[in-house]
């Protein structure tokens, strides 16, 4: 009995230890990103172009602007499409189109991001002979659309049936009920879904490597290559220059602040999701 008792204790504390072990990387990443990244943040870092290779100084302003442009283009494409698909999935769930779409959306979201990049390369870069912001935005949208569609579906399904019935009982067409009552009522949770999707694609690197590619200049038009924070981090990280490493950490800090900040904000402001 005593042995069993000790074994029990050992087992439970072993589990706790292993579980805590899962968090070590999180704290380590945060520690290094903050301690290495903070020192390179400066006014110049946000507003300047990179200095010539090997020279110290400059910033990644062009990549920050580039990321904002890419995210905005991608949102412009993905939010309406994702919302539409989500509505179809939730409000017309009995229709065969909706059932097939459900599988397609899940399949799309399971495709590795690098494959998505390859697709955008074959679709846009190859025929138009050149890397472009368009190609990058299309690649990112392929990732964002399923995300938005799935969260929209989930959120709309939380709306009680009685709301729909009440709307229809007023004699409103179903389209009106969906747009003016259901969507409006879930505006807050839908926004959260969209923000989470944005947080996710903001850090995507692989689909941009050979679509939006990279550039050392400010935004030059949508059909030109465009720099972005994640690709800049990658380029700087694998370079041999210490100044660039510091800039990579700085870029990582911006990304982390954005991603974790958005996630935290949502935790704080979102009413708890109902289970079920």
């Amino acid at each position, binding site marked *: 009995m005593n042995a069993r008792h000790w074994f029990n204790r050992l087992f439970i504390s072993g589990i706790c230890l292993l579980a805590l072990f899962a968090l070590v990387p999180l704290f380590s990443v945060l520690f290094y990103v903050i301690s290495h990244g903070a020192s390179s943040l400066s006014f110049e870092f946000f507003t300047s172009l990179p200095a*010539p*290779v*090997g*020279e110290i100084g400059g910033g990644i302003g062009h990549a920050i602007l580039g990321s*904002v*442009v890419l995210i*905005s*283009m991608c*949102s*412009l494409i993905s939010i309406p499409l994702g919302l539409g698909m989500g509505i179809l999935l939730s409000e017309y769930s009995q229709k065969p189109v909706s059932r097939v779409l459900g599988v397609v959306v899940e399949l799309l979201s399971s495709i590795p991001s690098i494959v998505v990049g390859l697709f955008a390369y074959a679709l846009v870069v190859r025929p138009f*002979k*050149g890397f472009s*912001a368009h190609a990058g935005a299309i690649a990112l949208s392929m990732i964002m659309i399923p995300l938005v569609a799935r969260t929209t579906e989930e959120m709309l399904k939380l709306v009680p049936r009685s709301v729909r019935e009440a709307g229809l009982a007023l004699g409103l067409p179903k389209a009106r009920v969906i747009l003016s009552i259901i969507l409006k009522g879930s505006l807050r949770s839908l926004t959260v879904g969209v923000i989470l999707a944005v947080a996710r694609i903001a850090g995507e690197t692989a689909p941009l490597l050979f679509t939006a*590619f*990279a*550039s*050392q*200049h*400010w*935004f*030059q*038009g*949508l059909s*030109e*290559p465009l720099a972005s924070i994640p690709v800049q981090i990658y380029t700087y990280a*694998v*370079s*041999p*220059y210490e100044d660039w490493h510091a800039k990579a950490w700085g870029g990582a800090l911006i990304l982390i602040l954005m991603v974790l900040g958005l996630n935290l904000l949502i935790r704080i402001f979102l009413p708890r999701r109902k289970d079920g």
Partner: protein
Amino acid sequence: MSMRGILQGFLLLPVFLQSGEVRAGWLERKLMVNGAGATFPYPLYSRWFAAYEKEHPTLAFNYQSIGSGGGIRQLLDQTVDFGASDAPMSDEQLKKAKSPIVHVPATMGAVVLSYQKPGLKSPLKLSGEVIADIFLGKISHWADPRIVELNPEEKAVLGSPDDPDILVVHRADGSGTTSIFSEYLSKSSEEWKKKVGKGSALRWPVGIGGKGNEGVTSFIKQIPGSIGYVELVFAKTLKLPVASVRNAKGEFIEPSPRSVTLAAEGALSAIPDDFRASITLVPATGAYPISSFTYILVYDRMPKGPGRTALYGFLDWALRRGQEMSPGLNYAPLPAPLVKRVMDRLARSEQESSRP
């Protein structure tokens, strides 16, 4: 609601930036001259561009250092205005071009053996055969008698036979630096020639691959016991040690702009009219054996227009003023007689294109 305003502004940003008014002001749209290719001369080119853009504020040079292989491909696909390569294009590649391509030698550099072996007092001395055997994996320890034989004074540091392995770092991408290095090794070692050969990417018997000169240098810097080949400027910038290499005259030569220029001068008369030349293992006193030109590749009959004027104007500038900047960055300026030949060639192409 202000939240909505922020959201709308955010979503309409691309449209806004794309529109004419913005360009006229802050984000003035410049004439883009796009180039891609070698990583080897990138540090020099990036300073050339910065200096030239200062003199010509309406121009913007966009250069992607993706490796010589990528530069040649993008030039052939006509996705860039100029390519850049360390090794000259092969006849087969030139045949694929839709119109003739001119090789413009831009500067010269040295491929150096850089390593991380703490404790060595002076630069390591290496011969072609030993380098080949290291990269073949036949010499796998720093204490190998053949390395010690070339560096007897470092015997104590190179250590006992159980001393750390030699960790080979090479390029993972198609690279002109690899072409030059493997050409040199093929000239130095029969076994290398048979087993591996020369090319811009190889089947490496040992080692890890880094992307670009940058990637290889950063591996060397991070991994004690490593050795790899990079362009001189990368090793110098990061204060990594570089080996002295035995040349065709049997001297151990430290890589420097001077020893590269000696190699080029030794080979001057043998440089053909299309400038596609090798200057590895040139039999000249004081010449560094793994020297090379690096080229800017342009279309001979590029259509007339602002793009051509900008590019050819830049080339002219690079051959005159640009050369003065080279030595400070550990590149070797082109010998004056060669500069003259190149400028004559470009002038001829200028005449051709102005003919109807």
